[in-house]
């Protein structure tokens, strides 16, 4: 076992454990906080994959914005939060079966793929992946169009969210 593998296994245990808590815990505020733990584990994985910028974005955007937004939404709809009864609907058994089948199917399909157990080559010295990423996002030959479309999507979502959530009383 190398240190990398030990970090990965700890991280995987954190991710899977807290993800299970997200979908099973009764108190929704706790579910949102377990989601923060999951997202933090995923950020560590990005660090392990040498994608430091994505790890940072994961912490800032996912934990800083999205998880906090979830906590706000739970607080604003808090009548259901105090609901101590069951939090799953009546066909949760079928759902669990379907999730297990999905996992089994994915694992089976992936394990029959040739590149399944490939290992990573070291990133050549002197390659700045962050600079490559930045150039790819603004270069007309690469991904400038999806990048701009994403910004329009964010603007539309902002306007839409404000419009939908504004109370129509006044």
């Amino acid at each position, binding site marked *: 076992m190398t240190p990398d593998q030990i970090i990965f296994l700890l991280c995987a245990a954190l991710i899977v454990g807290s993800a299970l808590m997200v979908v099973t815990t009764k108190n929704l505020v706790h579910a949102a906080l377990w989601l923060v733990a999951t997202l933090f584990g995923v950020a560590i994985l990005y660090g392990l994959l040498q994608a430091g910028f994505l790890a940072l974005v994961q912490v800032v955007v996912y934990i800083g914005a999205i998880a906090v937004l979830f906590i706000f939404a739970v607080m604003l709809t808090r009548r259901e939060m105090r609901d101590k009864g069951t939090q799953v609907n009546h066909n949760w058994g079928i759902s669990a079966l379907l999730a297990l089948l999905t996992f089994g199917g994915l694992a089976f399909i992936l394990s029959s793929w040739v590149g399944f157990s490939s290992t990573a080559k070291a990133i050549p010295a002197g390659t700045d992946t962050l600079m490559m*990423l930045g150039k790819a996002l603004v270069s007309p030959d690469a991904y400038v169009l999806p990048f701009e479309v994403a910004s329009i999507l964010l603007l539309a979502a902002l306007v839409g969210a404000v419009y939908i959530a504004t109370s129509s009383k006044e």
Partner: protein
Amino acid sequence: MSIPLSWYLILSAALFSIGLFGVLARKNAVAILLGIELMLNAVNINLVAFWRYGSGSIAGQVFAIIVFAVAAAEVAVGLALIISVYRRRTTVIADELDLLKW
């Protein structure tokens, strides 16, 4: 880097399945959105792992960033819808929002 690609793929398959269970089984609409977040994160782990183990193209990271943007937009609109529904119906239980059912 001594971690085989398979570890990342299995982990993200597990995370995706857990998220799928959350989406299908939870009653509360906010909890359903939490499940969707888990699934999006599973996809992102896959994208970044394929970037790292692939052949030098940066596309995996670019896609991951697009997924970040889409997730932020989806959560903003989704939670706005839930809050708006809660204001009118004082419930966020997905089963009770059956106005369009006949």
